């Protein structure tokens, strides 16, 4: 029997970084293609999703926008868990947000506790590139940091001008899918009527995408 190729993959994308670097703006730009000058500070975390087709696969990206303020980090644990990839954002016009990349990466690894600590897919995003007055964090400095921290990939964006926003999220999702390949196994037809891809290392976020009815039929 011919297998259906069109399966939906659910991916949990977590966006972290200092307060005011533009996390919410980037996500909003990506999911609704608009830019708003000022978002309220994010309290706790906010959820949005976008369905995209990448490399022929339909992916539902569940994007978690998290609070930038330190106070909320301890509450971030429940939001980080089960992430497939993580975007760390800094504001290129705010050097201290660049210096904090370290702290963010470590906090994520600690609280999100992904299994593959050394190879977990991060993407470093330097936002607000539109504010170029010569004093922005330099690309080579950012690249250097990424090289020193496990060869992470780096991308420069502007949520305001819509520069490379789509590209950044596509990269993130691709990285998440790479990781998924390792963890995903297809179950034989008789075990899963809908021929659904099932994650054997089931975690909270992805397991919950299965509807109750489907559970009964398995």
């Amino acid at each position, binding site marked *: 029997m011919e297998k259906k190729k069109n399966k939906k993959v659910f991916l949990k994308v977590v966006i972290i970084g200092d*307060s*005011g670097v533009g996390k919410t703006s980037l996500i909003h730009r990506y999911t609704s293609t608009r830019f708003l000058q*000022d*978002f*309220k*500070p994010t*309290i*706790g*975390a*906010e*959820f*949005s*999703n976008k369905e995209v087709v990448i490399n022929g696969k339909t992916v*539902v990206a*569940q994007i978690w926008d998290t*609070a*930038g*303020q330190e*106070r*909320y980090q*301890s*509450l971030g644990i*429940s*939001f980080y868990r089960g992430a497939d990839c993580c975007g760390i954002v800094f504001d290129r016009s705010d050097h201290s947000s660049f210096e904090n990349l370290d702290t963010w990466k470590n906090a994520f690894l600690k609280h999100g506790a992904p299994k593959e600590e050394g190879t977990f897919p991060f993407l470093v995003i330097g936002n607000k590139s539109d504010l170029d007055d010569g004093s922005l964090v330099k690309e080579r400095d950012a690249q250097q940091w990424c090289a020193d921290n496990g060869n992470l990939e780096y991308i420069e964006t502007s949520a305001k001008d819509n520069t490379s926003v789509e590209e950044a999220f596509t990269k993130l999702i691709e990285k998440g899918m790479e990781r998924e390949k390792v963890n995903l196994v297809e179950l034989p037809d008789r075990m899963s009527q809908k021929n659904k891809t099932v994650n054997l290392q089931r975690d*909270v*976020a992805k*397991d*919950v*995408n*299965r*509807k*109750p009815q489907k559970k009964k039929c398995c």
Partner: protein
Amino acid sequence: MEPVPQPDLVKNSSGIEDIKCKNEIIAHLIEKLPEKIPKKSKDRILYFLKALNRDTIDMTTLKVLAFRGIPEEVKSLRGIVWRLLLNYLPNKATKWIETINENKKQYESFREELIIKPQLSMEGEKSNGPEVTEHVVDHPLSVSQDSVWAQFHKDREIWEEIEKDVKRTRNEIALFVRAIKDEDSAKHWERLMRQAELKKSELNAEDKENYIETHADVLSRILFIHAKLNPGIKYVQGMNEILAVLYFVFFDTDDPILTETLESDLFFCFQSIMGEIRDRFCRTLDSEDQGIKGRIQYLADLLKEHDRELFNHLEYYKINPQFYALKWIMLLLCQDFPIYETARIWDTLLSDPERYEFLNYVCLAMLQYIKEDIMEGDFTDAMQALQRFPNDIDVRIILNKANAFVKEDPIYQNYVGDHF
């Protein structure tokens, strides 16, 4: 039966005569009563005036009235009632003016003591630190010059953190961007726009020189002083939103005394609210009953008790109550509705005889309001519904639904009734 006192202020159908007012603020309120008020509101306004204009205000009567909504037609009324509910104004009406003036003095001394240099972020640009003026050296908290500098840098971090959020606080109401001296707002609109857009430290020399003080500066100052006086929690994001609601309400006044003491009144009322909910902001208490996670768990337990079906559905999809209720419980719903509707919700929350117990029932009512959307879909649909509560709804619908949860409770017996 109406659980409110019958008005005896009314001498004839057209209005009020021959009242001996207990203080200037009440006198002003009555003098400025609008001429045309819808009949329904008029009765309620008179109930409020009667409840206020007493030697000793009966707070239960006032709470019972305010729980169902404070009439919006009379400028200053809501602000005055909130000041009482927050125990800022004493229930002896003859003491109001004295209290307000004493607190203003107290606030001014906080300002003097705690703000090392008001324009620090502008001055800090030029040199590496503050120009150490005599005022700073004489500062009671500073032992040596080093400590002044260290303090200055720490303070600057707090200022910058606050500034970032104040710039994005309730911009839709175009209040905080305005000049304190309102005549400057129209005259210097372009400069005000630049001030709103840029950090203080990024302004050009001319704009720095001619800086116009705005309501955003007052907002920042109050948050800063609060942070300095509460080093355990300092400034936490969301406090800006809580203060903004108070600001919006207190600003709606034409009373000369209340206009004069706006900033200090705001500070102490903000302090009063924060005093009651500070545990929710305190990181070290996160996992305790009174901390934010404990409060959210309490709400989840109530949901389980009152709506098992919805509770089970959310459980099934592993939707942690933190995903939706964190903001609601922590910020008293101040981020989820337009500001005037938030103010209406707060009438009820602040008059709650078990403050802030009723907030939980408002949250339950909100959950039930969107129950269908949650039940129909999967994780994603439920999350969308939960995180984007319809904010164009008349909140009285929600408040009336919330009444249903407490109508059997003797504590709320006199309180529940249709919300206005």
